[in-house]
């Protein structure tokens, strides 16, 4: 993400679409490419899933994974409006979710709590992220004025 041309283009596109287009970035190509990469990675994850459980069922496998994935990304500090975030953060987010999951099991809390926990985590992470952003932009403005 950080050191290749493509990665920088994705950041640029996320933070300001118009500016990115004026800089000569092929937006359509970029969008198709990112979705393509997402699809390929999802396919890879699907194969890993199959290898781990030894069976696959279209009705059961991967149901509700969206929440886990979105929660991990948001906890990892990726802003939903685009333009910032890092892969390292997302990995940390995944590890945190894994810890929460295991902790729930170890502490003897029933599995029914899991989905609600994900919801709470997503919303809390969103709010904290937003508050941090506000504070950051406030600090930036202060510096400019001084």
């Amino acid at each position, binding site marked *: 993400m950080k050191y290749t041309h493509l990665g920088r283009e994705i950041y640029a596109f996320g933070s300001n679409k118009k500016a990115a287009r004026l800089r000569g970035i092929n937006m359509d190509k970029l969008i198709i490419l990112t979705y393509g990469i997402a699809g390929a990675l999802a396919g890879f994850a699907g194969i890993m899933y199959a290898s781990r459980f030894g069976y696959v069922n*279209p*009705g059961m496998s991967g149901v*509700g994974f*969206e*929440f886990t994935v*979105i*929660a991990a990304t*948001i906890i990892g500090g990726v802003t*939903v*409006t685009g333009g910032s975030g890092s892969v390292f953060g997302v990995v940390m987010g995944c590890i945190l979710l894994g810890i929460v999951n295991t902790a729930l099991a170890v502490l003897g809390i*029933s599995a*029914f*709590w*899991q*989905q*609600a*926990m*994900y*919801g*709470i985590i*997503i*919303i809390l992470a*969103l*709010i904290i992220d*937003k*508050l941090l952003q506000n504070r950051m932009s406030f600090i930036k403005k202060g510096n400019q004025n001084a």
Partner: protein
Amino acid sequence: MLNKFKMKNKEKIDLRKMFMQPEYGTVLMLIFSVVLGSLLSPYFLDFGFLLDSSSMYVEYGIVALCLTFIIISGQIDLSVASMMTLSACTTALLFEIGVPFGFCLILGLILGMLLGFFNGFVITYFKLPPLIVTIGTLSLYRGIAQIILGDRSIGHFPSWFSGIDFRYVLGIPVPLLILTGLFIIAALILNKTIFGRQVYAIGTNEKAAIYSGINVKKIKMILFVFSGIISAFGGIMMMSRLGIARYNLSTGGELEVVTIALLGGTDINGGRGNVVGTFIAFFVLFSLKVGLSVANIKIESQLTIIGFLLIFSIVFSNFIYSKQK
């Protein structure tokens, strides 16, 4: 040549524009789905059967009416199905504890209002994108339903409550009448009141709406609160129809609700759309589903068809709107 045509008589152009409304696409889809249904099975075109089976999807239709408002204002609410479930489960739980049932229903609606209020509060106060917030609450609300009920179902409601789909007025099942009544109210609100115009204004250009003195936050809040109440109402109807409440009621229902709203020609970017389209789209989805079920097509394959419809409707209405310009 087209330009000359345009210059010569404006009236004809207006007629053409009138026919370029996405609602007509929805009507075409309705005809298509009815024809498809009757081709697939000879039992499809039985009027009484169609009326009876309509009650199975009415809950989604009702919620889609409200979601149309939200999408027109440029927002989205994906937590509708979870709100339906949570309020149904809470109502059932209160009933089990021993609260009088009429009181339970009112508390269920109030809970729906609170859930909607929470959505609206997080979205407007923290200025967060509604898509992600409602995905979060989708998970949260269903999770809470799972926590309070666990893996069991509650039934044995009073006999006056259960089986709403078996009540008829003038030969028409009550759920369908409720849907029609709510549709008329929604259409009047959207087209004839200041509130309706303000919803369109927010969807078209939020900044312009703010500068022209519309209290955008308040209106968004009202929309989300209403979405909560209507969802709770739909959830209670579903509970009456099934006679039980479980945490996994209407799983994936948000997909169907969004499909109905978008199939009706509502623009996902906001600012355009109509409740009429949603009302027709409800019949499209329902006749397709009934047709496919009668023809013994599996639920999983039906999911594929719904997904395809969703994408098709977005592309189609986008195409029509680009032509209008």
